[in-house]
């Protein structure tokens, strides 16, 4: 009943764990219910009538279940990561590595582009008024729709491999960085800007000594968003090339051949990867902010 209770400090470990547990239980129930139809049809075809318990336990070990049980997915992930050589085409680490490398390349390019655009926008009023509205409008366009075209067209002129996928990740990730950095570069108080003026600091000095450091918390906050969508971009970019390699290719191949366990394990690995990336960027951000003595700033909008 009390307002704002979610914001109150306190351990959320127990609540989160109970929700996770509830999800796992629901998942098992769902798997049992959704896979039951298949067991019933098998029983009917073979003319046997196994007990409900036998059918229930069978729903947990189908080869192509409608919904694989969690332990099946975990097993598949262990089989395709720890128990396979990394160079093997069936190793999920191999595929995740391919997706990760293009996502990282695109993320790096997108971050650079975003920062450059933000600096240009902050220092040029005309760009602020003409370019910024288009950058924002570009996000109402489903950019991922262009992904297959970019891949195929670049393929047609001989650009293959990492770069086309990285372009899509870049296109997706430059936006949050650009918008966040514009906000960040404009964030110093008027006091500080005036102080710089009394020191008769040049624009370059004011940029490197005031605007850039104060913008860093904003940069890391938006980089967390950017790295997550860079990964999405890389995964979607792998779809139109016809399932050669990468996590997106695993998804597509799985959907072609009805390998649900493969789809789910690719999905789980992609999610773990995304969570790890966000956490790592968060750590770097906290570390940098602490070194710069900006902890309070980071907390305010992190």
């Amino acid at each position, binding site marked *: *009943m*009390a*307002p*704002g*209770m*979610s*914001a109150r400090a*306190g351990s*959320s470990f127990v*609540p*989160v*764990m*109970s*929700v996770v547990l509830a999800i796992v239980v629901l998942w098992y129930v769902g798997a049992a219910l959704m896979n039951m139809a298949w067991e019933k049809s098998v029983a009917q075809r073979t003319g046997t009538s196994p007990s409900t318990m036998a059918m229930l336990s069978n729903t947990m070990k189908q080869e192509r279940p*409608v919904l694989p049980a969690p332990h099946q997915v975990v097993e598949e992930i262990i089989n395709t990561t720890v128990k396979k050589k990394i160079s093997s085409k069936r190793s999920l680490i191999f595929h995740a590595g391919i997706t990760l490398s293009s996502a990282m390349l695109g993320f790096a390019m997108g971050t650079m582009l975003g920062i450059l655009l933000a600096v240009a926008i902050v220092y*040029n*009023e*005309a760009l*602020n*008024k*003409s370019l910024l*509205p*288009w950058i924002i*409008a570009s*996000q*109402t*366009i*489903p*950019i*991922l*729709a*262009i992904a*297959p*075209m970019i891949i*195929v*067209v670049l393929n*047609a*002129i001989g650009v293959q491999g990492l770069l086309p996928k990285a372009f899509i990740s870049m296109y997706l990730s430059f936006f949050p960085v650009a918008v966040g950095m514009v906000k960040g570069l404009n964030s110093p108080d008027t006091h500080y800007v005036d102080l710089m003026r009394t020191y008769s600091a040049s624009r370059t000095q004011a940029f490197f000594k005031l605007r850039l450091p104060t913008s860093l918390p904003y940069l890391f906050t938006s980089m*967390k*968003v950017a790295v*997550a969508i860079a990964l*999405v971009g890389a*995964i*979607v970019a792998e*779809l*139109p090339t016809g399932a050669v390699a990468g*996590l997106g290719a695993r*998804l*597509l191949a799985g*959907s072609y051949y009805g390998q*649900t366990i493969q*789809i*789910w394990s*690719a*999905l789980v690995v*992609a*999610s773990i990867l*995304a*969570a790890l990336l*966000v956490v790592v960027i968060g750590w770097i951000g906290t570390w940098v902010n602490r070194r710069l003595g900006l902890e309070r700033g980071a907390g305010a909008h992190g």
Partner: protein
Amino acid sequence: MANAAMTRAFAYRPMERLLLPGASVFGIISVLLHAYWLTGLGIAVAALLSFWLLTKSRLSAALVTGYVSAAAAWYLISTVDASAPPAGFWLQVVAAWLLAWACVEQLAAIDTLSTLYKRVLGIAIPVLFGVWLLILWELLTRGLDVPQVLLPSPSLIAERFASSTATLWADFKQTFLKAVLIGYVIGCTAGFVVAILIDRSPFLQKGLLPIGNLVSALPIVGVAPIMVMWFGFDWPSKAAVVIIMTFFPMLVNTVAGLAAAQPMQHDLLKTYAASYWQSLFKLRIPEALPFIFNALKINSTLAMIGAIVAEFFGTPTVGMGFRISTEVGRMNVDMVWAEIAVAALAGSLFYGAIALTERVFTFWHPSIRS
């Protein structure tokens, strides 16, 4: 109106000092290189005239640059089909572009107190920028003879758009009116309702919020193949992807919004002896509206992406994502661009409609009033 802004001491802005002389130099050289003399000379004269006019009134200077650059662009586009344009032509393109850039700089530098005037400028500047992007695209693709497979010119795309409206409409109906809208409404409503339900349980909130935040960073589009397997090729599977993608942003934002009311406001309602539901509907949901609309806006983009990407995993032979992936395969890139234009148009109208609704419902909020 513009003169009122000119009372301050006049100074050229750095970009104006670069762009206008630059445009006139390029214009004159283009004439010396035997390009069509009227365009080159016109640009040069206009740039100098505008440079002089700037000391009188920025608006009239901008009108000169804007008008002449538009006329030059029109002439250049109408002659670009002449095979392999000479160097003088490209110089004129650059000169006209610099002139248009100067026009944007001048318009952006106008400071005025009239809100109407400000609003008109706020629309005119980005529109001018966008139009010039299209002009340069048209000139470059046609002048450099870029293969159509690589990048068709805007005019070709427009032609294809006009000639295949029936197909585009069918795809729009399948993807937007069915999958996106239905999924969006269900997903957003579900997120909102669950947020209200867990509102009374701090335990559930503590448990669900971190998970909701985590999920919004995950590549959820990846569930598309699973949904296609469960719900078939037609639009329900796409709507399901949209529901999953829109649910969590709505949940997280609504929960945050419901906690946004100040303790003072709560105390006031308590002194009124307001019940839980009264304070929910009279205070907390209105206070949460900016957060909810934020989620609605984020979700409008996510919904489009979800529906289109889900179609890459299998569809009946209609739909925007289906059309894009098959026409790419046939190298009909102009059709793909026409489809992207539809998606862009639908996406921005969708977003715009939500933004307008937000203005109506949250007129009291500081970000709208200012």
